[in-house]
């Protein structure tokens, strides 16, 4: 790359463009400064005045042109954005590096390396611009190429498949067939005489029990024929009797094992 940067011994120390046409062009550039997309864009435009392949561009010339442009802008009191000035400073530095013989004590990249990089950046930007132009010039959808005018939408059909296994089936059947066996326990109220019922009945009757009386006398009517009903009524009446004894309203006695249980009221005096 180095050989592509000609070190012309340009006698003109200042950055003035060489011809009237160039000068006019530079002024046109300044007027148009807002139209540039940054310093690189400006450099690329300036490089066109060299009318050479970007690979053979004279970066030194370009730096001069740019610095001249910035000078001119200052004279015309045109405010340049900061990045234009940063580029100007950098190009001034590059220019000095390119013009002065390399200082062996200094490290860092040589002027040639920096110049080559700038040339590369310009070439790459130009290449991208060309590519963009080529891209935009392609046959484009909606302008040159067209899609189906009446697209058919894909209908989404959701179908549901139901499944069941033989086990499901058998379990289902088993569930139904055994429902009776599984039914919750419910007392058969028909044949049950509760203690509460017996107690209520006995409270009403106890007043008359001045003498010892067999508690079977207190069984409600109609509960002594059916054995199931009699059992329930007997148990309830006995439990109610115990309750009355507990309350101190009656006393109980049983003369002997399996003999009749007798009840008598306690008179309060």
């Amino acid at each position, binding site marked *: 790359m180095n050989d592509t940067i000609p070190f012309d011994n340009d006698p003109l120390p200042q950055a003035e463009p060489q011809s009237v046409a160039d000068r006019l062009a530079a002024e046109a550039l300044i007027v148009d400064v807002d139209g540039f997309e940054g310093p690189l864009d400006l450099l690329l435009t300036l490089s066109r005045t060299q009318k050479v392949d970007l690979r053979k561009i004279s970066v030194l010339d370009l730096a001069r042109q740019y610095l001249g442009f910035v000078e001119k802008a200052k004279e015309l009191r045109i405010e340049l954005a900061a990045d234009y000035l940063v580029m100007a400073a950098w190009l001034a530095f590059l220019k000095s590096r390119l013009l002065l013989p390399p200082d062996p004590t200094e490290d860092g990249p040589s002027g040639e390396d920096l110049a080559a990089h700038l040339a590369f950046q310009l070439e790459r930007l130009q290449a991208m611009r060309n590519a963009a132009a080529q891209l935009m010039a392609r046959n484009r959808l909606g302008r040159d190429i067209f899609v*189906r*005018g009446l697209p*058919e939408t*894909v209908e989404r059909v*959701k179908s549901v498949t139901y499944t069941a296994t033989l086990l499901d089936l*058998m379990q289902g*059947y088993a569930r*139904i067939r055994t429902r009776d*066996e*599984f039914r919750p326990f419910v007392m058969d109220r028909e044949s049950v005489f509760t203690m509460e019922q017996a107690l209520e009945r006995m409270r009403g009757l106890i007043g008359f029990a001045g003498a010892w009386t067999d508690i079977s006398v207190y069984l409600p009517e109609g509960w002594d024929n059916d054995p199931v009903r009699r059992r329930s009524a007997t148990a309830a009446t006995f439990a109610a009797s115990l309750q009355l004894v507990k309350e101190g309203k009656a006393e109980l006695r049983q003369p002997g094992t399996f003999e009749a249980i007798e009840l008598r009221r306690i008179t309060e005096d």
Partner: protein
Amino acid sequence: MNDNAEHIGKEEKSLFAAPPMGEQERMVEAVLFASAEPVTVRDLEARMPHGCDAAEALVHLRKRYEGRGVRVMRVGDAWAMRTAADLSFLMQKETVETRKLSRAAIETLAIIAYHQPVTRAEIEEIRGVAVSRGTVDQLLEMEWIRFGRRRMTPGRPVTFVVTETFLDHFGLENARDLPGLKELRQAGLLENRPLPGTPQFGDGEDEPEADAGQSELFED
């Protein structure tokens, strides 16, 4: 000629002969493809270079698409391209979702399988709950049950039986292969012991009925 036609503007073209029929056919093809609505012959010709015969191009185009996945169709007095009717299934994206049959459906199905032929009233008696129309319809639709002979009782109620599809699905040779209550119990599907004296289906008493069912299982 073909190349020329592309480089010469519309106005100049009219000075020359119309493009060859093959080219006209391509034009009609592209317009019909890209147009959002059917296009009349007049519209076609208005868009095509001077001297074109859209009607003739359409005849060729139509022939070209015969038997293809796309058809050239007449819509009123206009023309349009449409996908072939027999390929309409491609325009649907099917998603199949597998769901478990509801408990009501399984129970109804089980009763039909074990007691067929069985009437709706009998199913309700066994389940102890009304059988919804949807449940029976679903099973009919799945082709797991079908109507059997009418019962020769007052009202001549319709009966239900299971189908061959049902047997296929459950891997049964016939409905008699369904395990009886005894086997269900042995398999641990029934845990408690039955109350003494409760008549059991599939235990002896039901056999003749089940047998009768089988004979008419695949009647038509």
